[in-house]
């Protein structure tokens, strides 16, 4: 599993000198960590061809940053007349705040959070400014999103081909923990341009929720890398950070997800934790670790069964059993989907 080599290179760049370079590069590309790796390795002596791959990745990361911040700016312009708080989330937030986690960080969609009461107005304003509903979100999926999800069906900008996800909280409404959306917004921090980001502890809580209480752990290595970088920066800046994090995790009913995220980050990336957090690694933790590392040096996904188990888990987490059954039934009785 070359995901291990990738983890080692990120954690301790000087330790990789004579390694399976193509395997490292392919694993990093597949996990969307090539930009982060390229910056980590910037001052290491590497073969010329590898150096040029990393150089190109750094250039590409600069473009990703420009693009992410520009999408945020265009959303800001579209939503400014509404006067509602607009909170940047995930990668775009790290770039907007210039956190260490943004170094080399790729960004896919623009994720924002707004108060639930403003969702309709926000959607209308975005559509007015050139975003469109995606056709595939029509029908069942659209109803599902609007009733049960923590976000609107994704919109896509017709000229720039970039997607925006508009959230009103950080977990689906059907999930068992219920984060305090009002507190997330109330404690958010304003940036110079008027856009906002979550408070540092809430950023960690959201990252942990996204990694462990929502999806199927796809992209887990990158999410954990974010968490590692953020924790190091936040803990160094604020001696009371760990207490605040504990309090926020409790408030949002996400203590277990946060604790596991911390253990995994510590295990993989050596993230320094507070003394009181004893990172004893359980058997369940080992399964998470194995899933997160299920990538080989050709960039292929490995451990198909484990991947599938986590896929099923992601649905289980999101929905009460009866609803899950209905959801799977609706999906299964459609025309068989081509992949």
């Amino acid at each position, binding site marked *: 599993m070359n995901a291990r080599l990738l983890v080692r290179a990120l954690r301790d760049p000087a330790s990789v000198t004579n390694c399976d*370079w193509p395997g490292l590069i392919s694993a990093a*590309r597949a996990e969307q960590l090539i930009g982060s790796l390229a910056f980590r390795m910037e001052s290491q002596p590497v073969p010329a061809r590898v150096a040029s791959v990393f150089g190109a990745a750094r*250039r590409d990361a*600069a*473009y990703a940053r*420009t693009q992410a911040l520009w999408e945020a700016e265009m959303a800001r312009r579209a939503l400014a007349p509404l006067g509602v708080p607009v909170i940047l989330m995930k990668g775009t937030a790290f770039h907007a705040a210039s956190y260490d986690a943004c170094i080399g960080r790729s960004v896919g969609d623009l994720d924002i959070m707004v108060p639930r009461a403003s969702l309709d107005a926000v959607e209308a304003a975005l559509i007015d400014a050139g975003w469109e509903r995606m056709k595939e979100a029509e029908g069942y999926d659209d109803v599902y999103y609007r009733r049960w999800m923590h976000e609107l069906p994704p919109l896509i900008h017709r000229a720039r081909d970039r997607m925006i996800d508009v959230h009103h909280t950080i977990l689906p409404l059907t999930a068992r923990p219920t984060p305090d959306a009002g507190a997330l917004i109330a404690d958010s921090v304003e940036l110079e341009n008027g856009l906002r980001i979550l408070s540092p502890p809430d950023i960690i809580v959201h990252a942990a929720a996204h990694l462990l209480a929502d999806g199927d752990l796809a992209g887990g290595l990158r999410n954990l890398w974010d968490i590692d970088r953020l924790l190091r920066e936040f803990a160094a800046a604020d001696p009371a950070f760990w207490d605040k994090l504990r309090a926020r995790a409790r408030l949002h009913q996400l203590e277990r997800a946060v604790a596991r995220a911390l253990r995994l980050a510590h295990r993989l990336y050596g993230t320094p934790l507070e003394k009181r957090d004893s990172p004893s690694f359980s058997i369940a933790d080992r399964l998470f670790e194995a899933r997160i590392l299920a990538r080989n040096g*050709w960039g292929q996904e490995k451990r198909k069964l484990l991947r599938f188990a986590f896929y099923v888990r992601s649905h289980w987490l999101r929905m009460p059993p009866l609803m899950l059954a209905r959801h799977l039934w609706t999906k299964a009785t459609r025309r068989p989907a081509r992949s």
Partner: protein
Amino acid sequence: MRHRLDIRIGPVAFRIGSAWKAPLDALARLYASYPAPEDGLADFTVRLEPERPWRRFIRPSVAIRGDYTLADAAPLSLAHGLLAAEMGMNLQMALGQKRYLLLHAATVERDGRALIMTGESGAGKSTLAALLGERGWRLMGDEFALLDMASGDLLPFPRAVSLKNGAIEVMQAEVPAERFGPRLDGTPKGAIRHMRPNAEAIDRMGEGATPALILFPRFGETQAVRGVGAAEVFMRLTQASTNYVALGRDGFDALNRLIAANPALAIDYPDTETAVALVEDFWRARAA
């Protein structure tokens, strides 16, 4: 992956993995005289793998994947595995190349100066470049031109030329049989046969050239020539580039330098011989 082959084309090194041996054997024959990448290093990885695990044996179909993969790519039959490998390498270039400004263009060189030919698929640039490559020009590439943004030079990417349908006969009349790959009939693009560039193109694949002339050839029309204005050249070249937008300011500056320094002509031509004659005329005029 079960099988592996490394290939270097110009400045770019590929690692190609495959679930089957046959496509890589065919690829190794086609690229027989190319240098191997240093120490097994690679810029890009290509994977030829079954679409589903059982499709390795039952009606084998080759999915084209790699560091960069397109969601809509359809698999090819195993009989077309060589084409799949070629497409896989092209795909990495189209999606992943960020070191050079990549133009979807054919280039040939003479006396250190390069001629760039670009146009939509089927415009005949590939055949024209291949033919010029046998007639006193050095073939730098039939598909991708790599513009070094710092120096303004073009770097060669002399992959095996992909000849389609009628172009196969044209080149068979010109080039010894040992430089051809197998003829692949019934591919999604019709009949395809790959042709290895000549020894000079391969021996000098580390050597760049300064651009001198930009042509927009179009095959199958009555002969016509017109000058192309700078704004149109700019538009056409950005459309011919997969990575222009991602290169930001450097790409903008490099493209403007290229356009400012080079005349551009659109040529319609009824047959390849006419085009070769036209190119020679323009080249003489440009040199004078």
